[in-house]
């Protein structure tokens, strides 16, 4: 080894300081991004899982708040987390939360903007998504589990066990996680991809005939999911 202690002293433990700094600081970085996952698994489980992930997928950017985008997929395959099949979705919500926190600031679309649109233009409306808008779909009650474990308050049983799709936004300073109604995720994803309101509504109705398009769009605007709208062709 090229490194040494003073006067040729052994450097194993000294070299270990660096090794330890790297590993511990990256585990802490993941713990800061995924506090609910850590609370659910417990610290020891989390550190072991994070250590495996860091070894296989170390950060490639010096911006640590960008780290861990592959962690949810890693959790999904992690041998010791198979008894918690919903855990990866909690991680996906937490990762989306931090993405929304750091995205560019933009004024959200005001609710009255929609009211000002002539009725014959409605079907052609195209919505510009707010930079912070994220969707996380889950076949599990991921929002309930996320919300219960994100803070320090005591956890209890999940009352309603059904799939939950999350809408994550940050219209101002606060990141907000809301539940989308059935079909809402398909509807919003279609709008985000640039489809007109008419096309997005038809797509959503196909997967969820009972979807209330008007209420859905109002809720999304209120959540700050959009930055602007424009009348299409």
């Amino acid at each position, binding site marked *: 080894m090229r490194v040494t*202690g003073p006067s040729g*002293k052994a450097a194993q433990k*000294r*070299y270990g300081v660096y090794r330890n700094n790297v590993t511990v600081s990256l585990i802490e970085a993941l713990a800061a991004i995924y506090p609910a996952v850590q609370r659910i698994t417990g610290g020891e489980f989390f550190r072991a899982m994070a250590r495996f992930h860091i070894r296989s997928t170390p950060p490639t950017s010096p911006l640590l708040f960008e780290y861990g985008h592959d962690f949810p997929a890693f959790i999904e395959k992690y041998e010791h987390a198979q008894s918690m099949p919903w855990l990866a979705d909690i991680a996906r919500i937490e990762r989306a939360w931090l993405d929304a*926190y750091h995205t560019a600031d933009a004024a959200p679309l005001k609710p009255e903007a929609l009211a000002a649109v002539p009725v014959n233009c409605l079907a052609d409306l195209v919505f510009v998504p707010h930079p912070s808008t994220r969707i996380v779909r889950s076949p599990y009650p991921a929002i309930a589990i996320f919300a219960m474990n994100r803070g320090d308050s005591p956890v209890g049983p999940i009352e309603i066990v059904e799939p939950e799709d999350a809408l994550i936004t940050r219209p101002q300073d606060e990141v907000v996680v809301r539940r989308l109604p059935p079909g809402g995720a398909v509807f919003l994803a279609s709008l985000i991809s640039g489809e007109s309101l008419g096309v997005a509504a038809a797509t959503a109705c196909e997967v969820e005939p009972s979807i209330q398009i008007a209420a859905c769009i109002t809720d999304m605007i209120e959540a700050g999911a959009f930055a602007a709208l424009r009348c299409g062709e």
Partner: protein
Amino acid sequence: MSSVIDASTSPAARALRSPAQPIAGRAGTSFKHQHLEAILSDAPQGSFFEVHAENYMGAGGPPHRALGRLRREAPVSIHGVSLSIGGPQPLDSAHVARLRALVERYDPVLVSEHLAWSSHGTTYFNDLLPLPYTDATLARVCEHIAQVQDAIRCPMLLENPATYVLFRDSTMSETDFVRAVARRTGCGLLLDVNNVYVSAINHGYCPLQYLATFPLGAVEEIHLAGHVEQTDDEGDRLLIDSHDGPVADAVWALFGMVIARCGPIPTLVEWDGNVPDWPVLKAEAMAAQAVLDRDRPANVCA
């Protein structure tokens, strides 16, 4: 293209960022968001604050809102921790561009980075790793610093590292190395007194000896911080630069000696882990300010 300039022939390169240096002889602290409201109502007059550059390289959101509010009230120093100036590979040009944008946005009173490396290949290690001191590493560090200074359009400060190992192939001392860097690039130096103490204990030399050979005339900022104590393979003291506690008495003593010799130099107390409530951090800054305010001649280190 970046150019290595000689400070002696380019006095403009050594000009301070702001003509009226607002932090001359002042003490400051690391800025932590949880302290923002307390700082805005209770910061000592003339205090300055330092942030890690990387924490403000997101596009928007609460970090920028907080730093913007602070910046309207006080001078801010930007301290990079991941540029990897001491590494063998070219600097990450996207990261240099981000630093430049940050400097343009916040007009900091100081910009600093470490004599260390933290990236290799595409991997980022999130630690300040040491380098051997040789002609080859000197040339590379100077080239990297010139590139940064070209990008941010002002001189940066280079910080002496806290180290735990030495390199068999080093051919010069750390103090000779940083002196050569400052002379060749026109950069200033950030003297981290805690790092001086940590490295001196770890490598068994006298911190006063280190300071006696350090180019103190190029120092434009001082760092103070806490460290923790461990032991090495042979059970000897091994200090870790942890930034998670108060400044040690031995470090205060060294700091007092530097100020007695050089006169007041802007001094910043770093505290990054187990961050205490604002009054504790403020008290550390005020203790540093008391040392700076002792009746001393103006800067006499040349």
